[in-house]
C-alpha cells in the first residue's frame, strides 16, 4: 500500500487555556509501529483519543486510511473510523464471553464466529472461547483485548498504555507477544507509553512528546544516541552533562578532549551516558565516588568531579569501587558524542 495510513496534520487541542496538543504532525506508514512516549500530562493520551474519535480536535486534520476523519467541519464518529483500540484498563465486556468480546466489532455480513476463531488463534487463545473475562488471567485478558481490537481488520490499532496493569515480569512477556501478533497481522499501530524502555523496544520509531508537542520522532537508536534536546536525552535513558568549550568537532572538558557530532565554537555541554564512562581507583584522580547503586549485572557509581559536576559511571558487578574512593574518570567511546550549546 502506498502513502501513510495515519496522518496528523497540525492537530491542536486545548482544554480551556491548557494546550494538550500543539500543532502535532505525524505520519505512520503501513505496517509501522510508532511508540509515543512522554511524561504524564504531556498529551499523548489526548492524541490517541483524538485519533480514535473519543474527543474532538480544535484545529488541524486527522487522516485514517486516506480518509479525513477529523478536521475543519469534519468529525467522523469513532465507530466509522476503522480503528482498533486496546484500552489501558482493557475494558473487556464483562457480560460477554471471550468469543463474544472478540466478535463484537466484526461486521454482521462476515462469518463472525470464524473470524473470532481466526484472531483468537493468532493471539494463542484457542479453546478459551466460552470463558468470561473474570475467569482469565491478566495476560489472557490482555490477549483478548488485543484480539478484539484486531478482529474487524482496522486500518490502525491504537494501544493506550496497554501493559500498565501487569507486573514487570509478565509485562515483558506480554509485550513481546503483542508485538509478534501485531507484526503477524501486518497491523499499523500507535502505541502510547510512559516507559522509555518499552517505547524503544516496541517502536519502529519513537515519538517523544513534551507539553503537547513532539520533541523528536525517529528510530529508537537515533533518539537514544542523537537526541535533539536535553529533554529527550534525559527522558530516554540516563544522561549526564559535562561543560566544555567547543573547537570545531572537539570539546575541551575536565575529562579531556571529547569528539562530538556537530561542529561549532564556544561553550557547550556534552552528553555522556553511564556506559560510556568507566572509573579507575587513583589517589591523584579528580573524582570522588559519592555512592553506589547495585543494579545486578552492573554497579552504578555516582561521582563528583573536582569542578563540581556530577556524573554516573557503571562497572561490572565484580569490580565495584567503594564510596569515598578517589577515582579517575575515563570515557570509553565508540562514536562521537552529542553536544548542546549553552545559551
Amino acid at each position, binding site marked *: 500500500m502506498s502513502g501513510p495510513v495515519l496522518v496528523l496534520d497540525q492537530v491542536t487541542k486545548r482544554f480551556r487555556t491548557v494546550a494538550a496538543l500543539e500543532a502535532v504532525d505525524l505520519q505512520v506508514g503501513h505496517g509501522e509501529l510508532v511508540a509515543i512516549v512522554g511524561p504524564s*500530562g504531556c498529551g499523548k*493520551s489526548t492524541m490517541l483519543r483524538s485519533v480514535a474519535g*473519543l474527543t474532538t480536535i480544535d484545529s488541524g486534520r486527522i487522516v485514517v486510511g486516506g480518509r479525513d476523519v477529523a478536521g475543519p467541519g469534519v468529525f467522523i464518529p469513532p*465507530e466509522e*473510523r476503522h480503528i482498533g483500540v486496546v484500552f*489501558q484498563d482493557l*475494558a473487556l*465486556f464483562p457480560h460477554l464471553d471471550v468469543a463474544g468480546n472478540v466478535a*463484537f466489532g466484526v461486521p454482521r455480513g462476515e462469518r463472525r464466529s470464524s473470524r473470532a476463531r481466526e484472531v483468537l488463534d493468532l493471539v494463542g487463545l484457542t479453546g478459551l472461547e466460552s470463558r468470561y473475562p473474570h475467569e482469565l488471567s491478566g495476560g489472557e485478558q490482555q490477549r483478548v483485548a488485543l484480539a478484539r481490537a484486531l478482529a474487524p481488520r482496522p486500518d490502525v490499532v491504537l494501544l493506550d498504555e496497554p501493559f500498565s496493569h501487569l507486573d514487570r515480569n509478565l509485562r515483558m512477556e506480554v509485550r513481546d507477544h503483542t508485538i509478534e501478533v501485531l507484526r503477524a497481522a501486518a497491523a499499523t499501530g500507535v502505541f502510547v507509553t510512559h516507559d522509555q524502555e518499552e517505547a524503544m523496544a516496541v517502536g519502529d520509531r519513537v515519538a517523544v512528546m513534551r507539553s503537547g508537542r513532539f520533541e523528536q520522532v525517529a528510530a529508537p537508536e537515533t533518539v537514544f544516541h542523537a537526541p535533539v534536546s536535553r529533554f529527550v536525552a534525559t527522558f530516554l535513558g540516563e544522561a549526564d552533562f559535562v561543560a566544555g568549550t567547543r573547537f570545531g568537532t572537539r570539546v575541551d572538558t575536565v575529562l579531556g578532549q571529547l569528539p562530538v557530532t556537530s561542529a561549532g565554537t564556544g561553550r557547550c555541554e556534552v552528553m555522556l551516558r553511564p556506559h560510556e564512562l568507566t572509573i579507575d581507583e587513583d589517589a591523584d584522580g579528580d573524582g570522588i565516588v559519592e555512592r553506589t547503586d547495585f543494579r545486578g549485572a552492573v554497579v552504578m557509581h555516582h561521582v563528583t568531579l573536582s569542578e563540581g559536576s556530577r556524573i554516573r559511571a557503571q562497572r561490572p558487578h565484580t569490580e565495584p569501587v567503594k564510596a569515598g574512593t578517589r577515582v579517575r574518570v575515563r570515557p570509553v567511546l565508540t562514536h562521537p558524542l552529542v553536544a548542546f550549546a549553552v545559551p
Partner: protein
Amino acid sequence: MVLVVLPVARLVEIVVREGAGTSKLILSSPEVRTAAVNSVGLSVAVMLLAVPLGTAMAVGLRHSDVPGRAFWRVAVLLPVVVPEFVLGYSWTQAYGRAGFTDALVGVHWQGVLGPGGVLAVLVASTAPVAYLLAAVGLAARAEPDLERAARASGASGTTVLRTVTLPLLRPSLAAASVLVFVLSLQSFAVPQVMGAPAGFTTLTTKIYADLSFASDPLSFVEAVALALVLVLLTAAVVAPADATLSPRLRVTRVAEPAGAPFSRRPSASRWVAAGLGSYLVVAVGLPLLALLSAALTRAVGLPPRPSNWTLDNFCLVIDQRSIEALGRSVGLAVLAASVLVVIGGCVALLEHRRFGRGVATMSILTLALPGSTLAVALLITYGRWLAGSLVLILVAYLAKLWALAHRPITGALDRLVPEELYAARASGATRLTAARTVALRPMAPALLGAWLVCFLTALHEVTMSSLLYGPGSETLAVIVLNSQELGRIGPTAALSVLLTLLMAVPALPLWVLSRRLRLRRPADTVPDPTRRENAQHARARG
C-alpha cells in the same frame, strides 16, 4: 428481632387457631380475590412502566452535556420528597373533574379516581427509585471505557445502548423491578385516596377497611389472613430475587470517574431536557400547583383566580388538634431517626466483625414486610399494653425503617479505606480514637443521609399509623388522610401543603449539608501517572 419475628409468628398462630375452614372461607370470598388480583395486577403494571421510565431518565441524564443536568438530577427525585398520598391527592385535584385542568382548559381525566389514576401516581412515585438504582448501576458497572471500546469497535450509539449498556445494567434493573413491585404491593395511601372512592380495592385497603370499619370478629381474622397473604406474595418475589441477584450485584467494581461518556448531538441532549421537563410538570408540577390552588381557593368549584383566594383553609386547619399532631409527627420522626441511626451504626459495626450477612438479610426482609402486615402483627402482639399509644407507632417505625438506616451505614462502612485506619493505629491512635478521628468523618454523610431518609419516611408514614393510632396519638399524616376521607377538599389541600412544606424545610438544608460533608479523596490512590493525567484532562474538560 422482637420487633418483627415475634409479631409475625403471632399472625401465623392466629390464623392456625382459627382453623383451616375459616381461612379457606376468607380466602375464597370474591372480594378478597378481587383485592388480591388488583394488588398483583397493579404492582406488575407499575413495575412495567416505572422501571423503563426510571432507566430512561438515568441513561438520559448520564451525559454531561444535558443542559442543567445538576438540576434535573435533583428534580427527578422530587416525587420521593412529596408524600405519596399528597401526590395522589394532588393528581385528583389537578386532573379530576372540577380540577385544575378542568377549570383552566376544560379538560379532565375521568379515570383519575380509579385504577388508572392509582397506576399513574404509583408510577410517578416509584420511578425515582428505579432511576436511582439504574443510575447507581450505570456508575458502578457501565464504565465509560466499555462504551468507548464498543464505539471504537464500530457500534453506533444505539447499538452500544442495546448490546453493552443495558445488558450490563441487567442485575440493577432486575433489582429495581423487584423493589418497585414490592413498593407497589405495599402501597396503601394512594389506592386508598384514589382507588377506594371508585370501588377499586387492593389487599392493603381491604386490611384497612376490615380493621377500621367492621366490628365483626371475622373481619379481624380476615385482616390477619390478608396480612399474611401480603407477606407470602412479597416473599414469593423477593426470596428468589435476593438469592439470585445479591451475589451478582455485589461484584460491582468501583467506577473510575475518568472522563465523561460520549458527547452526542446537541439536539439529543435538548430532547432529554425537554422530555424530563414536561414529565415533571405533568407528574409533579401541575398536581402540586393544583393542590396549592385548592388550598387557597375560597370554595370548591370556583375558578383559581386571585379574587377567590383566601387563607381561610389554612386558618381552619391550624387548630389545637393538628398542631398537636404536628408535634407528635415531628417528635416521632426525630426519635425514630435518631434511634435507628445509633442502632444501625452499632449493628453495622458488629455485623462487620462477626455475623456476616445474617443481619443484613434480616433487615432487608423487614423492608419487604408490608407495612399493613407489620402493623396488624404488632397490634396483635403488643396491642394489649400499647394499643393506640405513640409507643406502638414508634415501635412500628423502628421495625419498618430499620433497613433504610442500615443500608447506607453498612455501605459507607464498606467504602472506608482500611489503610487509613491502619495508618491511624500505626501513628499511635487507640482503636476508639482511630474510629472517631478517621472513620467518623468520611461516614458523616452516610449517617446524616440515613437519618434524613428515616426522618422523612417516618414523617409521611401513613400505612401503619392509620392502623395503629388511637385517640390522642394521631400523626399529621393520619389527620390529612381522615380529612380527605371526610371529603373536605380545601382543608385537606391546606394540610397537604403544610405537610409537604414540613418535609421540604428540614430536607433542603440537611441535603446541602450532606453534600458539603462529602469528602474528596485523592483520585490517584494507585500510583499510576497516566491515571492522574486522565483525571486532569477530565477535570480540565469540565
